[in-house]
């Protein structure tokens, strides 16, 4: 049966060697601290807990010696490696997440104020600036630089999708950076928003948007699919699912399917996504200068993207009639991070004018940011295909 009888001393030695504690190095406890930090952010600070709990626990879980979770044991993929392989490497999870996001998204604020789409485009500035910065400062290849730049869009699924296509070896660190910055939107964005706007600008009150008919909401995903398919086909796996989810929601004809997409299905893939992303952060791969550089450049991308959205609003205001001017604080929501970035616009706005309700106005650029980041990703993917 392949079992050999060995001397007790040798047996004890074998058992000892198979214990994780023998193979402990200083790197593992460092990773525990990082994992626990994410758990603290999620549980203690309530920052994106749905993602950071599985990510943080995934980091903690895989950073013990000899655990058969993320490798290949006896020729078969370990459990978390299966989630990672079929979920992320096959690009299933990002697309399913977009399906769920579409099913939970009300595009009313965007349809009611379509000029905010341009704010979502302007907020992609960080993606392109950081692309250059990654080559210049970090010595990354063009494809790696593109995958780092897209972190500035603050859109996890899009970051995963693009990175898997262009620089799959950077998937773990890029995804972690993107989700970390999405979680830290309330910390990172307000100082930039205050720095780039005047007291007068922060108090601008915007007019209510017009009423949107149900028919317009049904037509919107069809228009979006047509335009994006014709111009940026590379990103249609994401956008197609996003718009399909939204059509299910707005049509009202398939309420059960929409409900499944936005609740059960979304929750299931979120578990697999979080654990898989966390599990890629093994001590051997994470504790070197490169991931730290990715985190630094990702922060630059995110900050420049925030600024890009604000500057776009300020630029547009130069050409708008006074009654149509937008509050530049909604520009920061042009990075994706739905709906956290829109909430930040609302909170910062109310610090200066408690009666000013910017949330619904900020949802326009926020949703435009999702489409903008996906479009930017499609542009970058097509650059290398």
């Amino acid at each position, binding site marked *: 049966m392949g079992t050999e009888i060995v001397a007790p001393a040798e047996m004890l030695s074998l058992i000892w060697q198979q214990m994780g504690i023998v193979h402990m190095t200083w790197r593992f406890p460092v990773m525990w601290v990082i994992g626990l930090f994410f758990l603290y952010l999620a549980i203690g600070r309530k920052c994106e807990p749905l993602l950071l709990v599985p990510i943080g626990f995934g980091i903690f879980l895989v950073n013990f010696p000899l655990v058969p979770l993320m490798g290949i044991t006896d020729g078969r993929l370990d459990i978390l490696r299966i989630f990672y392989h079929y979920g992320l490497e096959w690009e299933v999870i990002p697309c399913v997440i977009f399906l769920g996001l579409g099913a939970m998204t009300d595009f009313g604020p*965007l*349809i009611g104020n*379509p*000029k905010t*789409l*341009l704010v*979502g*485009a*302007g907020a*992609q*500035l960080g993606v*392109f600036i950081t*692309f*250059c910065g990654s*080559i210049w400062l970090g010595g990354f290849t*063009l494809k790696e630089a593109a995958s780092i730049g897209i972190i500035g869009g603050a859109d996890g699924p899009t970051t995963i999708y693009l990175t898997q296509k262009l620089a799959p070896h950077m998937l773990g660190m890029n995804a972690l950076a993107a989700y970390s910055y999405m979680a830290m939107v309330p910390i990172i964005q307000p100082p930039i928003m205050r720095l780039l706007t005047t007291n007068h600008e922060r108090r601008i009150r915007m007019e209510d948007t*017009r*009423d*949107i*008919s*149900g*028919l*317009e909401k049904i*037509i*919107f995903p069809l*228009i*979006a699919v*047509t*335009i*994006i398919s014709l*111009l*940026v086909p590379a990103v249609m796996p994401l956008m197609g699912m996003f718009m399909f989810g939204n059509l299910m929601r707005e049509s009202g004809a398939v309420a059960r399917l929409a409900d499944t997409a936005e609740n059960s299905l979304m929750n299931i893939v979120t578990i697999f996504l979080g654990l898989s992303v966390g599990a890629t952060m093994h001590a051997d791969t994470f504790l070197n200068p490169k991931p730290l550089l990715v985190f630094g450049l990702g922060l630059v991308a995110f900050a420049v993207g925030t600024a890009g959205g604000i500057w776009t609003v300020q630029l547009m205001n130069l050409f708008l009639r006074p009654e149509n001017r937008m509050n530049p604080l909604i520009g920061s929501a042009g990075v994706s991070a739905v709906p956290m970035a829109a909430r930040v616009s609302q909170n910062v706005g109310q610090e200066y004018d408690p009666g000013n309700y910017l949330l619904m106005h900020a949802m326009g650029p926020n949703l*435009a940011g999702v*489409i*903008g980041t996906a*479009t*930017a990703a499609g*542009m*970058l993917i097509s*650059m290398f295909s």
Partner: protein
Amino acid sequence: METIPWSNILVGLLIRFAGVFLVLGLLQAGIRLSGAITSKLLSARGHNPSDH
């Protein structure tokens, strides 16, 4: 050491950044057009958009 073709990269990125504005700008035009058409359709049928 390989020289990075910065001018090509920058022009390429600038065009793509402009491309993002083009795509979202066209989407904006599409929304406005569909809004105009649907409001005419609905008003012809005597509906108020806020009824939906």
